[in-house]
């Protein structure tokens, strides 16, 4: 095993790790060695060719089809230089005050998170797209909201030079999305921080991270690893883990930290999501333009969010419940499909958790509660009203019976959509907002870290990603992750 010496090792390079890397630049400038290890490859813009299956396989764990142990939910999380900021749509919202208040983490104030988030709003070019860049899919959502009595908000997004490929979730081919792969990591590297890609953290131990560097896949996208493939022990007095809710929890569990931290891996929340479509009598231009420009926030009142979205042929096909001629008819109407992503606000539960399988792979245990299913049903109803308000002829709603609602059913939405129609394993539920597992809190009995990401009982170790969330953030999480990571980095700097 190769031995490397550093002052700080950061595991992961997404919204959390990328932010920490940049905030540790003062250390690098003082000659200290800061190393970031990232499990995924470093991609070039030209690698993002929009081929759905090829890019899903290159970018996501299990090609985006990582299944929970119950087989009822697929989880999407990216592995790349820049982590999931490579594949999100750039939506950048501050944490809701009521959520941070409900978290009740001693020493964590909403004002502080907002102040830190503001830094990244500026650095990452967060802004509202002008009217002329809003596509028809989004316009229909706004119009439908107006007709159905919902307030649509515009998403601030962090793009620069967006050409409207609509391919955000497969990596932007034009380098327009200002994730950590475009802003924080290049800046950190220019200042001397070393980033090693294709480097999988196997375990952490006091004063070291054990890493396996993998070779490039023959013919696959992305650049080769910066280090020779093989095993490394990187010795460093400070370690920051930012591998995401699943990656960080699994890494700490693999490292044997679970015995002193009884809630490690527990309290996973994911914002379970359904994709709904409404068919119009005209083309909707859902495959050009920024895909996610507007949302409806009913989190506080009804426990759900609705967001505009555009997906690709296979993901769309998979997300529509059913099969055969009815399913095919929707797919053949693809250019006329308006799409809405439904996100339910789940609550952190002890039983929903990350564990580690015998082969070291993470395993996710997640069960749907009746309350969560009620929220999904309420979101189905709201979406159906918005689709019909926008003029849709037919709506596919997974929690309706029948699942295809015609315009004549518009007044019967409340009657036709019901929680009892939800069948786990039949409805395609997915999730990309993975949170919790290393929750912040007061002590080791009820949490994994303090409000500065310090792992209880392990002063050499910090966590800096969405795994810190004690409960669901109830909005798109990236700006909150960056704000928390900013705090964690400040703590590391203070320690050094």
């Amino acid at each position, binding site marked *: 095993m190769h031995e490397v010496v550093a002052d700080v090792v950061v595991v992961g390079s997404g919204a959390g790790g990328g932010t920490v890397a940049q905030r540790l630049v003062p250390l690098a400038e003082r000659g200290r060695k800061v190393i970031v290890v990232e499990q995924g490859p470093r991609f070039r813009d030209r690698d993002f060719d929009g081929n759905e299956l090829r890019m899903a396989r290159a970018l996501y764990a299990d090609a985006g089809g990582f299944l929970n142990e*119950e087989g009822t939910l697929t989880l999407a999380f990216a592995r790349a230089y820049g982590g999931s900021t490579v594949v999100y749509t750039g939506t950048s919202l501050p944490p809701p005050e009521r959520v941070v208040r409900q978290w009740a983490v001693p020493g964590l104030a909403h004002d502080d998170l907002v102040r830190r988030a503001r830094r990244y*709003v500026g650095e990452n070019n967060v802004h509202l797209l002008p009217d002329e860049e809003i596509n028809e899919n989004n316009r229909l959502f706004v119009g*439908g909201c107006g007709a159905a009595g919902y*307030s649509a*908000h515009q998403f601030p997004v962090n793009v620069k030079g967006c050409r409207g*490929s609509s391919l955000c979730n497969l990596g932007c081919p034009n380098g327009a999305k200002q994730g950590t792969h475009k802003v924080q990591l290049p800046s950190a590297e220019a200042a001397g921080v070393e980033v090693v890609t294709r480097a999988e953290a196997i375990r952490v131990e006091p004063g070291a991270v054990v890493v396996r560097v993998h070779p490039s896949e023959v013919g696959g996208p992305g650049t080769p690893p910066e280090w020779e493939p093989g095993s490394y022990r990187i010795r460093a007095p400070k370690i920051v883990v930012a591998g995401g809710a699943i990656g960080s929890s699994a890494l700490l569990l693999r490292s044997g930290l679970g015995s002193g931290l009884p809630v490690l891996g527990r309290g996973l929340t994911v914002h379970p999501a359904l994709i709904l479509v409404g068919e119009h009598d005209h083309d909707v231009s859902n495959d050009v333009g920024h895909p996610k420009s507007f949302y409806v926030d009913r989190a506080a009142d009804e426990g759900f969010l609705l967001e505009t979205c555009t997906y690709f*042929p296979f993901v769309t*096909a998979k997300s529509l419940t059913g099969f055969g001629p009815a399913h095919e008819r929707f797919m053949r109407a*693809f250019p006329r499909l308006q799409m809405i992503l439904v996100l339910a606000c789940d609550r952190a539960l002890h039983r929903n958790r990350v564990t580690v399988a015998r082969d070291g792979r993470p395993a996710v245990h997640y069960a749907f509660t009746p309350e969560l299913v009620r929220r999904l049903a309420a979101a189905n109803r709201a979406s159906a009203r918005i689709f019909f308000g926008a003029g849709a002829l037919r709506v596919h709603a997974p929690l309706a019976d029948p699942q295809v609602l015609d315009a004549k059913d518009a007044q019967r939405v409340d009657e036709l959509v019901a929680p009892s129609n939800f069948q786990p394993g039949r409805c395609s539920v997915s999730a990309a907002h993975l949170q919790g597992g290393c929750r912040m809190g007061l002590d080791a009995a009820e949490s994994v870290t303090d409000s500065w990401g310090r792992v209880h009982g392990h002063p050499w170790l910090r966590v800096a990603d969405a795994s810190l969330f004690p409960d669901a953030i109830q909005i798109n999480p990236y700006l909150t992750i960056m704000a928390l990571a900013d705090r964690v980095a400040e703590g590391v700097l203070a320690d050094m």
Partner: protein
Amino acid sequence: MAGSSGDTRGTLGPVWETFRAIACVVVPASEELDADGWAGFERIVQSALAARPEGIRRRIVLFVRALDAMARLRLGSGLASAEPLAARRFLEGIERSRVSLVRRGFWGVRTLALMGYYGRPEAASEIGYAAHPDGWSARGLSAGAWPTRSGQGTAEPNVMVAGDEGETSTDA
């Protein structure tokens, strides 16, 4: 339905004919695929399976076998030779099964069939999906060619944006 089975076909080799029959029920248009189309379909499915853990691969094969056995009991023939409407009704019942394990198993097989068909590059043009890295300009449009949004239904955004130094509120 043409095609041979055997170990050379990867994970699904031993049950390929049954799986193909299921795929034709899941996506009726796959009946229209020519030999090249099926070859592309099969490459996608086998490649996807090859990348999954061994346990999942084994369970998929077992489940396809189980489906075929259940079809023989229910329909009097295996899925590869069942009448299409009867096969569809049978699989609809499987999809709605009270037994979670059965629903989940079918969801996996259905997902593979949808991937094989809609994952083909040709499928995109067949269904009219035309996303392009060049976005608006690939359509001969500039973003500004679209009419201005009416604003109906919009609320004041509750956000922070670059250059905004004012007080921040959130969507509480």
